């Protein structure tokens, strides 16, 4: 950029740069701008404005050309993204197609991405649970990964802070394994979900079914009205973007809030190639991007940089940020960058039927999706032949069955007169995986993408612990289902590759020791104090909770710390 003058460089200089505009990036932008910092938010994809760029949000089923189905050619051309449960005709446009950003799979990994302003916060499943100390103390107690440099008490006030703003529905269940938060009223369990809850309560000491806690405005508070959001209307078409702002997304919540301050510059179509580390100044000075439309390479500068590109791409950016000081990637003195990558094991499900409570059904739709079973295995002490455990979803519903046999008038009448099935119940496993040095993300040595960045190589797999835990889930759920009087119990092993859980974590983990971790207890790089990572890449271990709420809390906490350090002159 030598040909550009000083004024141009000044125009490209901000107080803070946030890489990524999704779940955690949106929070970073909100916090920085509220604290008065001129902030640049970079997003590799296009802009998606709340309520303007949701093309399908108010469409009726018959208005979709294929009534929701993904055309054959699209499926054939996109075998990976087609596996994602939300990749349907109504939300296809929010997912990255397979050939848009290729990667190398040394081992199969289904990398599900949303390249647009708002990222995956637009299409997420909206489940939000706090971690407890049983989670933060996991690695130290069970001797894997490294000790988390924080405990629940460090994050608790920040959980409260983000919950109040985002709007989280749930009950105060009083469980030490899943701390209560600042909840809006929960979406209640239905009769069979309640039945199962009671069966677990009377047969086990430590097993519970609670209303799933989720980022929906069951009863909006003044802060949510101020954001321009109103009560969730139970459409459960969230993946299209919500015209009511009924669920939390960066698009509906954090980004408009940040823009209102007048301090945010949002730059879509900006692929970050690397964070620039100045060997003379011994700090990061900015980022280098490629504009995906003009292919122009541009540098932006700031005092502090937050990397929130989503776990995998954050690893990619850091690995590709090479300097004399950091020849193996930014902040990577320890050599652990891109290692100890982990995820959640979502490959097991179980279903059954129930013939009780036949006088009741449900009416309308439940945005929370039903019940949640917090982790009970190895919770307070090691008690099985595998490490850690799993949480599980649980839901019950009755289906409308129609007799579709025959043709003619009779068939036509049958289609208009469905009968109500018995109760169908189902559960899915959400299991912790153990971060391992051998589960890695690395840069391909020869191949680059369209924006001059090396392709990422995935070398990530399950292990024996995952197999044992899945077996235990099947056994325990079968036992619990049997006790509840459920019949026709069927287990299902999807054998899916890692990634389809869309809970990628680690690679730039937090830890106390710079020799074995990348980030300190403030999500700040041990070796480069003006760079922070607060998305999934920072995770030392995965536990079983849906991770987004924790990213939000870590982000707000890290920005607060970073701004404090800037005021003290420690970051300049």
């Amino acid at each position, binding site marked *: 950029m030598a040909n550009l003058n000083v004024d141009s460089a000044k125009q490209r200089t901000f107080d803070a740069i946030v890489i990524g505009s999704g779940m955690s990036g949106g929070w970073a932008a909100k916090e920085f701008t509220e604290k008065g910092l001129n902030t640049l938010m970079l997003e590799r994809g296009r802009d998606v404005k709340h309520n303007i760029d949701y093309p399908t949000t108010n469409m009726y089923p018959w208005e979709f050309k294929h009534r929701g189905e993904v*055309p054959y050619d699209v499926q054939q051309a996109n075998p990976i993204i087609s596996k994602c449960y939300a990749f349907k005709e109504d939300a296809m446009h929010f997912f990255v197609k397979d050939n848009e950003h290729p990667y190398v799979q040394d081992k199969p990994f289904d990398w599900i991405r949303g390249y647009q302003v708002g990222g995956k916060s637009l299409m997420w499943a909206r489940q939000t649970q706090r971690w407890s100390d049983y989670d933060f103390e996991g690695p130290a107690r069970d001797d894997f990964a490294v000790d988390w440099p924080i405990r629940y008490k460090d994050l608790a006030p920040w959980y409260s802070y983000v919950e109040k703003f985002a709007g989280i529905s749930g009950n105060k269940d009083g469980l030490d394994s899943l701390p209560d938060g600042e909840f809006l009223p929960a979406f209640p369990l239905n009769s069979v979900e309640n039945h199962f809850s009671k069966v677990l309560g009377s047969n086990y000491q430590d097993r519970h079914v609670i209303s799933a806690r989720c980022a929906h405005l069951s009863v909006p508070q003044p802060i949510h009205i101020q954001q321009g959001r109103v009560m969730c209307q139970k459409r459960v078409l969230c993946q299209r973007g919500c015209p009511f702002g009924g669920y939390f997304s960066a698009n509906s919540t954090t980004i408009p809030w940040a823009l209102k301050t007048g301090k945010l510059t949002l730059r879509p179509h900006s692929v970050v190639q690397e964070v620039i580390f100045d060997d003379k100044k011994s700090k990061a000075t900015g980022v280098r991007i490629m504009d995906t439309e003009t292919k122009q390479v541009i540098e932006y500068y700031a005092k502090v940089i937050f990397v929130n590109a989503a776990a995998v791409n954050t690893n990619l950016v850091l690995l590709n940020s090479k300097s004399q000081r950091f020849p193996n990637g930014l902040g990577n003195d320890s050599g652990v960058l891109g290692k100890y990558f982990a995820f959640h094991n979502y490959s097991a499900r179980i279903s059954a039927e129930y013939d009780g409570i036949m006088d009741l059904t449900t009416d309308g739709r439940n945005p929370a999706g039903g019940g949640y079973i917090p982790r009970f295995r190895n919770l307070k002490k090691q008690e099985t032949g595998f490490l850690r455990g799993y949480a599980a979803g649980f839901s019950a519903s009755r289906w409308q069955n129609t007799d579709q046999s025959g043709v003619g008038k009779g068939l036509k009448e049958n289609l208009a007169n469905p009968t109500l099935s018995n109760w169908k119940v189902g559960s899915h496993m959400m299991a912790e995986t153990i971060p391992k040095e051998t589960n890695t993300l690395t840069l391909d040595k020869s191949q680059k993408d369209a924006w001059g960045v090396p392709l990422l190589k995935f070398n990530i797999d399950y292990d024996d612990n995952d197999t044992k835990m899945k077996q235990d889930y099947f056994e325990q759920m079968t036992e619990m289902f049997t006790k509840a009087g459920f019949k026709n119990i069927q287990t299902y092993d999807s054998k899916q590759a890692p990634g389809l859980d869309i809970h990628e974590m680690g690679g730039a983990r937090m830890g106390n020791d710079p020799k074995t971790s990348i980030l300190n207890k403030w999500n700040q790089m041990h070796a480069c104090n003006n760079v922070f990572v607060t998305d999934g890449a920072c995770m030392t271990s995965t536990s079983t909770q849906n991770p987004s709420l924790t990213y939000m809390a870590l982000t707000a906490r890290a920005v607060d710390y970073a701004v404090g350090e800037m005021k003290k002159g420690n970051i300049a």
Partner: protein
Amino acid sequence: MNRRTVIKNLALVIGGAALLPSCLHDPGKASIALKKINVSADQERFVADVAETIIPKTDTPGAKDLSLHLFVLKMVDDCFSKKDQDAFIAGLDKLSKEAENRYNKPFGQCSQAQRESLLNELDHKQAEFQKAQKGQSKNAKKELPADDMLAFYGITKGETIFGYTYSKYFMTKQIVYELVPSRYNPNFPVKNLKVAIKNG
């Protein structure tokens, strides 16, 4: 088939008829634009007659009124593999000939009873085939039956029912689809259900 496309096509046909009938509308071709499958006007008419036999006009609209045959063709064109499309077309012609052989007249000119009789035979075979498939492991890929006629019938029936139950008519007049329910009642008495859904 999208409502807007129907209207557009309708406008095209009407406009074409008034202005340049021979250029804009080839009477030998299907009435909608198809990218992959090659369907003649006769074949389209046959699909319409089969769809109308499956969902006949009564005191409420039937398949032809709702253009379900065009939806079937659109879905076959866009949402099926080449192999399935070939089976569909081959089966279409076979079934068309089968009707002529049996009743000595085109399927469309047969009585509703004759048409139903022929399709019900296939319906029984289809049910047996599906039953056999159910026995297979859940992970087994769903294959079409080897008999093209059965493949054609299975696709046409499935897509006709899909198109019917997802039509604006059905979703506003029969079983009403709510875009914005605004409620979740977790404990709703079955006896209070408004639509005629009973315990099965």
